[in-house]
C-alpha cells in the first residue's frame, strides 16, 4: 500500500491563518459560540427550565440535554464524512461535493424561509431530541463539514497517515474533537447567555436580544461552503 503523498494540488489558500490547524480549530470554537448565542438553538429553553423549577441546576440539566442533542447532530453529519474520507483518491471530489452540499443547504434555507412544522410536534420535555432535530433541520452540522475536511485533508494541517485504518481512526478522532469542541463552545456561550438572563438581565432580554438570523444563518452556510469549495479546487 502506497503511503499517501502530499497532494500536489494542495496549496496554501485564503491566508495562512485559515489553513493552519490552529486557525481551523478556532473556527470550530467560533462556530460553537455562534450556535450557542443564537436563541434558535435553545438557550431560552434553559432559562425557561430554571424559571419553572426555580433553581439553577435545572438550567444546567437543560443545557446538558441541549448539548447532547447538538453533539449527536454534529457527529451524525461528521462521522459519515470521516468514513468517506478514507477514500483518499476521491478526497478532492468529496470536498467539492461536501462544499456544494453545504452551499445548496444554504441556498435552500435562503429560499425556503419556513420553519419545519415537525419541530413543533416535539414535546417540550424532550430537549435533547429537540436540539438534535433543530440542528439537523438548520444544517448546523453541515456548517462544520468544510472546516472538518480542512482539518483531515492530507498535506493540510493534519499529519500524513498511510494505512486506511489509521486514517479512519485519525478522521474519526478529528470528528470527535471537532464535535466536542464545537458543542462545548456552544454550551458555554449559550449557557453564559442563559445564566445572565436568568440571574441578571431578566426575561425581557429574551425578546430584546432575539434577532432574525435566518438569512445570516443561511448565508453563513453558503460562505463556509464557498470557502471549502475554493480550498478544494
Amino acid at each position, binding site marked *: 500500500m502506497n503511503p499517501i503523498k502530499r497532494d500536489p494540488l494542495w496549496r496554501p489558500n485564503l491566508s495562512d491563518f485559515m489553513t493552519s490547524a490552529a486557525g481551523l480549530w478556532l473556527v470550530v470554537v467560533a462556530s460553537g459560540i455562534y450556535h450557542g448565542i443564537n436563541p434558535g438553538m435553545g438557550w431560552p429553553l434553559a432559562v425557561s427550565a430554571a424559571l419553572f423549577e426555580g433553581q439553577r441546576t435545572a438550567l444546567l440539566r437543560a443545557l446538558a440535554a441541549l448539548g447532547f442533542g447538538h453533539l449527536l447532530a454534529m457527529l451524525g453529519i461528521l462521522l459519515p464524512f470521516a468514513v468517506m474520507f478514507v477514500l483518499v483518491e476521491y478526497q478532492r471530489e468529496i470536498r467539492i461535493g461536501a462544499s456544494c452540499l453545504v452551499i445548496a443547504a444554504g441556498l435552500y434555507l435562503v429560499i425556503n424561509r419556513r*420553519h419545519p*412544522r415537525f419541530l413543533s410536534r416535539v414535546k417540550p420535555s424532550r430537549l435533547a431530541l429537540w436540539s438534535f432535530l433543530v440542528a439537523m433541520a438548520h444544517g448546523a452540522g453541515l456548517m462544520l463539514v468544510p472546516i472538518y475536511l480542512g482539518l483531515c485533508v492530507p498535506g493540510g494541517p493534519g499529519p500524513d497517515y498511510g494505512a486506511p485504518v489509521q486514517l479512519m481512526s485519525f478522521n474519526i478522532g478529528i470528528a470527535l474533537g471537532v464535535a466536542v469542541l464545537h458543542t462545548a463552545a456552544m454550551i458555554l456561550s449559550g449557557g453564559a447567555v442563559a445564566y445572565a438572563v436568568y440571574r441578571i438581565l431578566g426575561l425581557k432580554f429574551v425578546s430584546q436580544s432575539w434577532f*432574525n438570523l435566518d438569512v445570516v444563518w443561511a448565508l453563513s452556510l453558503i460562505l463556509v461552503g464557498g470557502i471549502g469549495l475554493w480550498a478544494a479546487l
Partner: protein
Amino acid sequence: MTIRPDPTFYASPKIAMEAPAETLAFTLMLSPDFSQPDGLAVVDVDPKSKTYGQILHSVMMPNTGDEFHHFGWNACSSALSPLTGHAFLERRYLIIPGIRSSRIYVIDVKEPLKAKIHKIIEPEEVFEKTGYSRPHTIHCGPEGIYVSTLGGGGEDGTDGPPGIFIMDCQTFEIIGRYEIERGVQDKHYDFWWNLPRDYMVSSEWALPPQFENGIVPEDLLSNKYGHKIHFWDLRGRKNIQTIDLGENHQMALEIRPAHDPVKQYGFVGVVVDTTNLEGAIFTWWRNDDGTFEAKKTITIAPQPADAEDLPPLLAGFGAVPALVTDIDLSLDDKFLYVSCWGQGEMHQYDVSDPMNPKLAGKVEIGGIVKKTKHPSGKDFGYGPQMVEISRDGKRVFWTNSLYSTWDDQFYPGERGAAMVVAHVQEGGGLELDPDFYVEFPKGYRSHQIRLEGGDCSTDSFCYPSV
C-alpha cells in the same frame, strides 16, 4: 417576517402587564337579522383622546349572514416560544370566523385606522379541508393558528363531531384537523392550553341544531347540552382525560387557564345548573401524575322575579338565572370576571386561592329584570356578556349581545348594541366609567372585544412570571 420580535410579544404575563396601555379596541359587530354585513369596529379607548369611546373606523364585510362571534390574532406572545421558532411574526392580522356562515376573514390591522380585508376563506374550503363547520375560538399554538369549531360536516353540522383545525400562521392556508384521537369528545366550544406543560383543555356548548335557531328548552331541561371538559396531550393531539361536570351543569363554555405557565390550574364557566338555575364556575387542575380534577368553586344563585317581568322562556320558573356566559382572568391570575348575562351583573372574584374564590367587586348594568342604566344615563340593553380585561388589569371592557337568536329569546325586542368599561380599584372593586359608552350603527349588536397589542384572553405565555 421581521428582524426583531414584535414589541407586543411578551415573554411572561408579568412583562405584558408592565407594557404600555392599549389605546384602541377592536369590537365585532353583527347584524342579528342578517340584513346587513357584519363588521369590525376600531374603538378609541384612550382616555386622553377627544374621541374616547367612539368608533374611529369600521371594516364591513362583503357578505351577509356570517354572524361574527369570537376572533383572535394571527400571532401572540406564544411566538416567543423557543420551541417553535416563530419569533419574527407580526401581530398584525385579526382572524374573524363567521359562526353561521363558516366563512373566515383575515383583517390586516397594521394601520388600525385603515384596517382592511387581507384574505377571505370561503366556507367550502373549511368544509373540504377539515370536515368541520362553524369556526369559533382562535389561539396561536405550536403548529400555527388553532381554530375551534362548533359543527361537524353536513347541512346542519351533525355529520361527525366538531373539533379543532389548524391554519398556517403566515399564509392562512387551512392545514387540516388537529385531533388524532378525540376519545369521547363529541361537542365543542372553547379551548386553551399551557404551552410549556404541553396540555390543552376544551369545553362543550352544543351541536348546531341546539343553538342556531335559538335555545331548545326541551334539550336544556333534559340536560342535552354540553357538560364535559376534555384534557388533551397538546402536541400528541390526543384526548387524555374527560371530566363530566355532571349533566345538570349545562353548557361549559369559556376555558381560562392561569396565565402563568408555572400554575397548572384554570377555570371554566357553566351557564346554568338545571337542578336549581344556579350559574357556576369550576376550578380544574392538574395533579403531579398528570391527571386532572375539577371542583365547583363558585355558584351564583337565581334571583326571584315576577313572571310578567320574564320572557316566556323563563316565566314558568319565577326566577332569573345568572346565565354565566363569559369569564375572563386578569394576567396576574388574581381576578376572575364573571358575566351574569341574565341578571345584569358583572362579578369580580379574587381567585388568588383558586380553590376558594371570594367576591371582590360587582357592577349592575342591564339585565332581564333590573334593566340597570349606564351611569351616563343611557340604557344598556341585554346584560354584560363578552368581557375583556386590559393587560395591566386596570380596565374591564364588555359588550352585551350573546348570540342573535338567543338574545331574542331571553331579551325579546331589539335592545341595541353597547360597549362599556369599568375601572378596577386597588385591591378589588369595580366602577363603570360614565364617559365611555360606545354607540354602534343602527341595527347592529356587539360581541367580542380585542385590545390593541393583546389582552387577557388571547396571549399564551411560555415563561413564568418572576
